[in-house]
């Protein structure tokens, strides 16, 4: 008769079991990682977001490849970061190509101030809530992720978003200060 107890506690069994445990833990972790971070709906939401945004923007007459982003007036820190991330490198070049920048104004007063100050040479207003397909449902994970700069536009839903023509000789300070 086989002594199960002795088989179970045999030294080589324990060693193999530990190796197997490590392997299984790694596999489970990978699966969990995929479940949490590589959800198909996240991908499609982001793709849809970009597609819709860019389509809307280009329908309004902005040529492709001429877009920078900037937030102005009351912008959250995250927007400020994103603005500088996307635009700043272009501003340091004398032959900078960005002609238009996306501005975010959190309220109409700031918008009016910007107009009065002549900081909006020309502009196009976009209804982002419509453009982004808000009715299709919002994924809270995506919406509140601070790590994905692509979500900047989505997070702006409901605010007034404008594209303004970026004037040559505009410095970074001109753009970011309210």
């Amino acid at each position, binding site marked *: 008769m086989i002594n199960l107890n002795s088989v179970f506690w045999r*030294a*080589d069994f324990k*060693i193999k079991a530990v*190796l197997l445990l490590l392997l299984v833990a790694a596999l*489970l972790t990978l699966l969990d*990682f995929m479940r949490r*971070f590589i959800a198909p709906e996240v991908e499609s939401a982001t793709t849809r977001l970009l597609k819709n945004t860019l389509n809307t923007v280009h329908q309004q007459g902005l040529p492709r490849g001429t877009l920078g982003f900037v937030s102005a007036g009351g912008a959250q820190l995250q927007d400020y970061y994103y603005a500088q991330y996307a635009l700043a490198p272009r501003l*340091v070049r004398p032959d900078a190509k960005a002609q238009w920048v996306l501005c975010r104004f959190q309220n109409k007063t700031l918008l009016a101030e910007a107009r009065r100050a002549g900081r909006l040479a020309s502009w196009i207003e976009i209804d982002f809530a419509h453009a982004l397909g808000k009715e299709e449902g919002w994924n809270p994970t995506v919406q509140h992720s601070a790590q994905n700069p692509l979500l900047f536009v989505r997070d702006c839903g409901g605010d007034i978003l404008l594209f303004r023509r970026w004037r040559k000789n505009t410095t*970074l300070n001109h753009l970011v200060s309210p």
Partner: protein
Amino acid sequence: MNFCAASSSLWTAWCFVTLTIGANSSPLATSRFAYRALRLSLAMPLALAISGFFFFVPALLPVSRDTSYSLELALSLVATVWCLRRHKANALVKENALPPEIEYSMVDDTTAQTPNSQLLSRAKLALWLLSVWSVAVALLYASQIPEGGLDSWPIWNLHARFLYYGGAAWNAYLSPVLSWTHPDYPLFLPLLVARGWSVCGGETAWVPILISILFGAATASLLTTSLIFLRHSFFAGFAALTMLIGTPIFLLYSTVQCADVPLGFFFLATLVCVTFGRENASEPLPAGYFVLAGTMASLAAWTKNEGLLFVVILVVAQLLCGTRRQIKRTMRQIAFFVLGALPFLFLCWWFKHAFAPPTDLVSGQGASTFAKLIDRARFRKTAWAFIVGSGSFGDWILPPAFLLGVYGVVMKTQRHRANQSVSLIFLVLALVAVGYFLVYMTTPRDLSWHLRTSMSRLLLQLWPTFLFAFFLWMRTPDDALNEAFVETSKSETSSTRSVERSASAAN
């Protein structure tokens, strides 16, 4: 020209690694793959560093980009000639037969016939599948966040854009307007990205993504192969790899284009080279390992400010771990280490001295620093964050402390020649952790915010090296399995004998 020059850097790095750690040290044909993987893991990041450096030369010196790339090509030619000459010299030495001790570290006996050869082949298959799967997962995840995570787009890739687009005005980001991008951070990663874009002919998100994944893969490969060679055990490397790949935060940061995984790689590479050098007891001193260790440590300093702390601590730890009897040897080790570190440390110093503003964590110090250091509340808060952070580190399904604990209980530690190196590595890790602790204690920023936003990344930097030290310290599964096999054989023999005795007694 640009592409050729960038490719030639890989060859230069390969030659450098070959020259420093030896080309033909692996006597078994079957171990050549693992040995090449080890060398490639060290050469690839070094190649990236060299190509990044030559992208930076026109910003430092009055030379055109083409001249700089020509110099890069010329360097690869020099490396080739040097390598060929050394190869001939090695062939002559080989004819006179090398003493076996010199090849101690490189002998791979994993192919020896063991009672567990079937288990070995299965484990190898599992390792390959796990590696391929992890890379696929990393690529999938990276394609979803092509801009990377926080720190990548507002810091590293932003700096890369200035370097790539800025031309002569590349240093415009050093303006106080962009002080939040940490302009004092070294340029290793931004230069790689900028060089990658210049090779591709334009800005693409795949360059920083691939660089990020490459460092993750190099870390995994180096950890596995170094343990295979140092402990003569495939399973030690296998166990370490499963622990590393199974750390979600490692996978995450291998895709989000931050500098923590590259920094962790350089920490690991430095200590792997030091361990190889210390394990090789031959005379003359195997200087190449220490030169390469110095280079890797200086690249850590060129990657992130934490690397500078690491370089200093490593020198101090080597002094502390050297016995009086070996003091001469230790001093020579340190001298070669510093020699290897000089080029990139000089570059780092030049950048810091001539361009970068002071580090906010240093410039923010003042009269309140001492008060912060002796503030009990800050101490408790920081210590608690370290304890909680270490306990919950990695975001595992099963806590790594539990898995390593089980592994340790079953395998047990082993008295081994490598134990001196293990002490050195643990000492370095402990001192770096103390350094981080002091930085937190004196931080001019809000302590809670600072701890919350950086603790896991700092632990991640140390994680691969910790795993290396842990698995170097433990008895290998191969040894344990062989021992179990011998014990089983003995008990079977004794039981057979007792059966025979009882049978003969009955007769």
